């Protein structure tokens, strides 16, 4: 699947993996927590080489959020699902309860603890899945198109939570996504194509590379797209990240009416 693929992610970095469909983005992330095993080459997480002996320790460091919120909900109530990972690590009951209380308040899900997953919406389920990872206190979060099945509002909420959590806990994030705003929020983008690393750049650099964007079937956020288009038509301006910057950049160049 991959040939000659090598990269290093700094602690605390938010890295987005993009690429055309079938380029192996999910495979790559699944290699990172031992869900799949490499045929050759090595994977190191936190200085530890991933192999059959270390895989359970490494899964303790790496939380993995899957795409489909329905298929990662294991127990029949929210509370039991949050406990699932901790039960597997044999944590004492008092500590489980304490972590569940803390994380459920943090994510605002304390009122749902006794509900069955089928009574929750997709966004709510994804938030519970996130809670189930946070109680394990991971250092790395893998995010495999985790917002792609959510509606716009739920996606935004999810992103807000992630930003806040990252500011508070400072974990490393690896996310696979097609969403421009999610890419924009990250520090660095890895473009995977044909089993190789096609590019390693910043989100803004990626948005400016039309041929890469085209190949990965990505579209830049509206503000970026507009400023790129205006530049192409000869208007001198910086590339803007959001609408506020865009307004500020365009305002001075508007002709003043008298």
């Amino acid at each position, binding site marked *: 699947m991959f040939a000659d693929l090598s990269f290093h992610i700094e602690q605390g970095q938010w890295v987005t993996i993009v690429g055309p469909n079938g380029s192996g983005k999910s495979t790559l992330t699944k290699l990172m927590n031992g869900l799949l095993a490499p045929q050759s080459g090595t994977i190191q997480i936190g200085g530890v080489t991933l192999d059959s002996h270390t895989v359970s320790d490494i899964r*303790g460091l790496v939380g993995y959020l*899957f795409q489909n919120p*329905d298929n990662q909900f*294991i127990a029949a109530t929210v509370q039991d699902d949050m406990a699932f990972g*901790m039960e*597997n690590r044999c944590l004492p009951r008092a500590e489980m309860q304490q972590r569940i209380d803390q994380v459920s308040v943090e994510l605002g899900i304390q009122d749902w603890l006794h509900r069955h997953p*089928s009574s929750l919406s997709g966004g709510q389920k994804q938030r519970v899945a996130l809670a189930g990872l946070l109680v394990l206190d991971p250092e790395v979060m893998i995010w495999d198109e985790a917002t792609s099945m959510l509606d716009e509002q739920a996606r935004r909420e999810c992103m807000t939570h992630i930003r806040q959590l990252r500011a508070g806990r400072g974990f490393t994030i690896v996310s696979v996504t097609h969403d421009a705003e999610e890419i924009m929020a990250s520090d660095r983008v890895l473009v995977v194509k044909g089993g190789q690393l096609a590019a390693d750049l910043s989100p803004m650099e990626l948005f400016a590379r039309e041929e890469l964007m085209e190949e990965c079937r990505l579209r830049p956020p509206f503000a970026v797209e507009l400023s790129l288009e205006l530049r192409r038509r000869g208007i001198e301006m910086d590339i803007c990240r959001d609408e506020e910057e865009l307004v500020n950049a365009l305002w001075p160049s508007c002709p003043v009416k008298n």
Partner: protein
Amino acid sequence: MMKSSKLVMGRYVEASSWVHRLDPRAKLVAMLLFLATVISAHSIVELSTISVIALLILVSSGIPLSRYGRASKPLWPLMFFMFLFYALFEQGGSVWFEIGSFHVSSEGVLLGLSAVWRMLLLVCFTSILTFTTTPIELNLGLEAVLKPLKLIGVSPQQWTMMITIALRFIPTIFEEADRILKAQASRGADINDLKLAAKGKMLLTLLVPIIVGAFRRAEDLVQAMESRGYVLDRARTSLRMLKWRRVDSLFLIGFGVMLVFTFVM
């Protein structure tokens, strides 16, 4: 939608009685003792005594008796045939009347009645287990009660994990079925308009996408479980704890005594 919300709760009937608060392990073991008692009871006196005790417990569970009656409904035809067979084929005592070459005797009728009586007793009383225990509690109790099976190489943890997952996914799969039915209806194949045979065929076409979906789901689920540290048969703790109280011991002792009595008498 109604269907799935009903399933979530299993057969659990909400009420706050002492039976609801009993430890599921006590209830499970007591049911086994009750089963043995009913089977070993022979005389009318014994059966009556057991019935009175069972009735008292049923009444005190805070669930209407009709509910228990309804639980036995699916078995009524079976009970009827059981009675018929005993009445027609069992000989002894005085012959009451003849139908063709069959002799209906007092002995046969009596045996038939007591067989039906026992079955009714068993079905109604064991319903108390599922009526007063939530599926999650029941599952925990089951895991504890089955623990000795580890000695012969069977893993109760695997079974209860299967039950947990079933409890979690049955409503989801029903929802999916509902969605597929609606999708088919929106394309003009409404199951409600069809004749019985066509309905059956339609349900078959429903099975394929549901089974395929379930397999895909299973694969995702395995990865989600593994990435959260689940290893088959490795020891794990549990968030939920069962509390054994004195009333549980008394409950169990009561059933033990009942069994001993029917055995001795």
